[in-house]
């Protein structure tokens, strides 16, 4: 059977490690050794800590901001690509938007550091016009720039594909019925492409929620996000059970958000 290798591989090396994470979160650490246990101490320690909830809030906020911002920036572009350009230009643009997936995100972030730093490209450019250096690196703004860079190509592509499926006759009909331009976009195009738009935003949320590179190297890592917390805890020794608790909280959040988003996407139109 051809189906079995994939099934076995994903059971053994994907599902099982994730389930193992659940077990791990109940283990205890004694003398720098992890011991199998059924102990709620890790959960208690993490969930009663202020720092964890601060990080949780920050991460959720950043991911939401990134999803909303990326969707808003991407939509006019996707709209233009889907509706306003010739087929050849469309194909060419889609091809160009795939290129970033083959470039290293790390290198891009490093490059962004050079753009955003105090003595960096953007501030030097502003300096020509006598505008003082603006602090961008190691701020939330820096983090957001990185996250949008990460998500934008994917979101534009997903939005473009969903807009391609919008029935052109509907748009024509709206125009014939004297529906205004903006109103057509908001009342006809956006609702018909809702599933794709929501899924695109969901992907942006998931990517931003789990990313630790932008918050660390563009946001300065302080205060930490949840993913920075996980890498810190894992790096600094044998407290993996606590890192597992943080990871499980992240997964729970992501599953909830994904579930709600998909519910919303497929909800019956109207009421």
């Amino acid at each position, binding site marked *: 059977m051809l189906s079995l290798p*994939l099934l076995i591989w994903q059971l053994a090396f994907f599902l099982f490690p994730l389930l193992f994470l659940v077990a791990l979160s109940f283990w205890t650490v004694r003398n720098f050794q992890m011991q199998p246990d059924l102990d709620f101490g890790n959960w208690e320690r993490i969930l009663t800590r202020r720092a964890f909830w601060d990080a949780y809030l920050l991460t959720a906020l950043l991911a939401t901001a990134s999803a909303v911002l990326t969707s808003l920036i991407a939509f006019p*572009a996707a709209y233009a690509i889907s509706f306003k350009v010739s087929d050849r230009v469309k194909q060419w643009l889609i091809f160009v938007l795939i290129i970033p997936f083959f470039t290293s995100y790390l290198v891009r972030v490093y490059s962004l550091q050079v753009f955003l730093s105090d003595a960096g490209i953007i501030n030097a450019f502003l300096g020509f016009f006598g505008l003082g250096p603006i602090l961008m690196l190691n701020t939330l703004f820096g983090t957001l720039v990185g996250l949008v860079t990460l998500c934008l190509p994917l979101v534009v592509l997903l939005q473009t594909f969903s807009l391609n499926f919008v029935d052109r006759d509907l748009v024509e009909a709206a125009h014939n019925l004297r529906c205004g331009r903006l109103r057509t976009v908001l009342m006809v195009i956006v609702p018909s492409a809702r599933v794709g738009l929501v899924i695109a935003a969901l992907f942006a949320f998931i990517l931003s929620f789990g990313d630790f590179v932008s918050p660390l190297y563009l946001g300065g890592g302080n205060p930490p996000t949840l993913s920075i917390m996980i890498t810190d805890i894992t790096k600094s020794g044998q407290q993996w059970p606590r890192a597992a608790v943080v990871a499980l909280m992240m997964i729970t959040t992501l599953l909830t958000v994904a579930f709600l988003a998909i519910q919303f996407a497929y909800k019956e139109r109207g009421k």
Partner: protein
Amino acid sequence: MTGNRNIVIEALLRLHVLACLIFIFAPILGSFVFSLNSDRFPSLPLGHFSLEWYRLIWEDPFVWSGFFNTVIVGLCVAVIATLLGFGGAYTDYRYKFVGKNVYLALALLPPTIPVVIMGLAMLAFLSRINLSGSTISVIIAHGVMCSPFAMAIIRLRLSQMDPDLEAASWNLGGNEWATLRHVIVPFARPAIFAALFITMAVSFDEFAVAWFVSGLNETLPVKILGFLQGQVSPGSTPSARLPSSARSR
């Protein structure tokens, strides 16, 4: 397309697309420019043209070992992920069975799990079965993460196949394996090659999970992560930047 065009709005939309492209590609082009620039921390005005950084990288044994690790991992992952992905794609194309949704979810979900969590789960699990800190652990982890891409690409190709082809082959006396070998694999060949390349590219670029599980056998992106962390000249004291995985039991 539609009746009432407005030149101003269309121009603005085009400008917006251009702005998005600039935003996306400025860092990519920037990194090329900076790599040819003499300054360590580039700023305006740029320093002079220099290939010094390329020479440093070229002469750095750590970079080379990382490069070889990356290539080995990438090649193995491409083959494994494509084989797994082909099996998955064919299963989805050919069979209907109870629990197929679960099968598909299991097959396609890995890319949606944050890499940090994948990394931690892999590290904890693989160190438990004494497989962490080796090249094999990176291959296993990347196999999980890349096979969905291979599966999606091959599945897309299979959906373009005439379903009668398979039936015709059976009518002509081909058994299931013969049909697979002489009809389906040749038809899917372009997608199989695409899958090989894409999975290799994904593996080449993946740094987070590799960072968690690779230990001393760092791949190139993991080394880049180290450079980024240390902001030091490539090659100096890489051991200081290793995650705990190197020390794992």
